[in-house]
């Protein structure tokens, strides 16, 4: 009974979102894998692979690139589609459709929060793009099959293993299976809100995030936007954001457009209408609704997608307190650091 009540309290949009994820999980993943089978594949790999064609191999020519693109033509089309929708509507593939991130999220949401690992406060942009760089350049050159760390094959594989005969479960204890299980459990089920894989390791998410950020300043782009003057700093949104995209900067919610998935949860939980999934408003910044007797009355909400940290002396101080702001240098450092670490790890295996 309590469960039903709990379900009833889920905001409408979120109910819709969960339903969409369940639907895509059933159609895109095994054992049904209805949609992949339409194009002759039984999981999201092979010609459906969206995450291999942009790998860079030293000395690669454009022809090689086009061979890769052609080999995974359907995946490339899907990838472009995702990027285009992202440009206009935000990362709705990630938030509403992706069965890979979605499944981990849903299973994580069914668990009690106590035993979860809170990844959301880690410097996700540095880690994500550090790993992305490693994935694009170092992995191909080192000859590591990026596929064993790829959730788009991990999740279908695990589901395949568990949906067949009981002996199929043996896959879970092979070395690749253990790595896959580790990815799903540590970065999925036991991660707070279950989106740690998306935050740190998903190359599609990384590319998608860049597009999301690029489009954020365009007037036609729907994004999660904050009206600063409405925000009370109650931080419910930051606590609920599954991607750790909301950070309280000077006690005002700011949305990190590189990480936000437009899942709409923050909008649902904000009691002050300080957040909305919307396009840029027509009026000017801080334009009042009316001016009466020389007094400006209540400004129209100024829906901003991107907030820049004020460049002031106290900004530095606040940066010290609330963690470092993102800088090119720190991303670069993270890339080098991760590459070195990974080479050591890989080297010890070989």
């Amino acid at each position, binding site marked *: 009974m309590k469960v039903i009540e709990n379900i009833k309290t889920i905001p409408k949009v979120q109910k819709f979102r969960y339903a969409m994820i369940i639907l895509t999980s059933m159609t895109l993943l095994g054992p049904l894998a209805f949609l992949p089978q339409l194009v002759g594949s039984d999981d999201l790999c092979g010609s459906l692979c969206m995450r291999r064609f942009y790998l860079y191999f030293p000395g690669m020519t454009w022809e*090689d690139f086009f061979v890769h693109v052609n080999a995974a033509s359907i995946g490339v089309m899907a990838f472009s589609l995702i990027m285009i929708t992202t440009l206009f509507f935000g990362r709705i593939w990630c938030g509403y459709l992706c069965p890979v991130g979605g499944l981990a999220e849903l299973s994580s949401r069914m668990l009690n929060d106590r035993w979860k690992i809170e990844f959301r406060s880690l410097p996700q942009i540095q880690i994500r793009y550090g790993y992305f760089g490693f994935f694009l350049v170092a992995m191909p050159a080192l000859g590591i099959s990026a596929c064993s760390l790829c959730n788009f094959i991990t999740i279908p594989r695990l589901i395949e293993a568990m949906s067949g005969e009981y002996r199929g479960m043996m896959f879970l204890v092979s070395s690749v299976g253990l790595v896959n299980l580790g990815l799903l459990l540590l970065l999925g089920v036991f991660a707070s809100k279950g989106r740690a894989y998306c935050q740190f390791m998903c190359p599609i998410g990384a590319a998608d995030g860049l597009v999301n950020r690029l489009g954020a300043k365009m007037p036609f782009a729907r994004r999660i936007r904050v009206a600063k003057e409405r925000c009370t700093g109650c931080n419910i949104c930051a606590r609920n954001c599954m991607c750790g995209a909301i950070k309280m*900067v000077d006690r005002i919610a700011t949305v990190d457009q590189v990480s936000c998935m437009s899942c709409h949860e923050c909008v649902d939980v904000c009691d002050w209408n300080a957040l909305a999934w919307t396009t840029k408003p027509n009026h000017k910044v801080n334009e009042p609704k009316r001016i009466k007797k020389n007094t400006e009355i209540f400004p129209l909400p100024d829906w901003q997608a991107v907030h820049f940290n004020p460049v002031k002396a106290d900004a530095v101080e606040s940066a010290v307190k609330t963690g470092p702001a993102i800088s090119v240098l720190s991303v670069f450092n993270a890339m080098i650091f991760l590459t070195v670490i990974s080479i050591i790890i890989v080297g010890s295996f070989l």
Partner: protein
Amino acid sequence: MLRFLFLIVLLVLGHEQVSANPRYSDPDGCLSCHAYEGLSFIDEQGVLRSATIDSSHYASSLHGSVPCKDCHREVINYPHKVENTEVDCSESCHVEEPSEGVKYTHDPIHKEMDKSVHSGGWYKGLTGGNRLEEIETEQDPSCRRCHSNTLYIPEAQLEKFKEDFDHAETECGNCHQGKAWMGQFGGHILRRLIGRRWNNQENNQMCIDCHGDHEKMRDVKQEDPETLEEHPPSDRFVYSTDTYAKTLHGRLIADDSAYGASCIDCHAPLAWKHDIRSYTDSESASHPDNLPETCGQSDCHGYTKKPGNEGFTLTDMHNLTLVNLADFKQPLEEESLRGSAWFWSIWPLLLFGVIFIVGSFIWWLLYRNTKKIIPIVGGDRFERVMVGRKGKAGRKKAVVKKPAVKRDAKPKSEVKETKAAVKPDSSEPIVEKDKPVMPDKAETDISKVDNDTNNKGA
């Protein structure tokens, strides 16, 4: 012009002459016996085999104009021995390659095959060989094992073939006049044009027919190319087709994409595609030293030959861990169990499990009355970094104070909203006065807000 015309006439006439040759009417008299119905013998394996040749079938076949002895060269006397009937395709053939004028021969293929892992297969009676016996007892495939002619025209192509055959008279017949030519070669060439070669999927299926049979592959004896010692096959070998199917190469071909690499593409990329060798053989295409060349074949991974890509060829194309382990017998046996990755990984997992269970109990003892649940790993940091609260101490206070804070949060924020409305520069940070979590900062901010409002009012 005249000379040209003359040439054409000569060509046509010449052609006519050749193609109009009558079919050989069995000059060696083989059919005097072999035409008998029910002519049969029992071979070494005890299988009853027919030796009857239907002369009308033979005459209308592709080889209808070729006398028996052109191929069965060892048959000299009557009666002949069964062994002497074997055909050696590595000798020159009756067909003359028109552009070169050289008699056709399979000799280059023979030489290649001889060096390959399948070399033993060449010597099995090439045409007369009994495929039954070959499947049961020997590991090396004969030519016919792969080049089986059972479906001369694949069923799927039959309709197209019929259709084109009806047009052959007008299209091929423009130049190649004469019934004899059309009858003998028309169909053959047409079939070659339509059927062409196998596609990659069929190519792979040919290999999988044998190599996909685990039982059979377990019985194969592999030979070390250096020491020539025989040893039982490795799991890599036995499950090679399954591991291949899990790779992108295998998946692409299974999806009927032109971009996958088939078995032959990597194992015998050169020349006549028969030179399949063990990867331990230094001349094999799959030997680690030759992989850059093999992977970098035309329009595959051309960059493998360039510096910086040495690691690329390390990618395991027959990775056993990807196979569904349900097919393995080994992991369940004690010896391989101790050597396996999962056996060892159970220990750390067990350790974590114990910590998990004990920790859960302790947690329950200490915190069972706490309402607010915060993840044990990183929860604190989250409060600090994302929410901007203080660490542990601050959190405990916050938990206690929570209801009070919530109650008066509403009116306060309304007040603030009006403030914000009057304030021109909304990018100025706003901080609630009654939550001085970061005391110095809050103070400076508040003073600024006040200043701004004052300015505005003035």
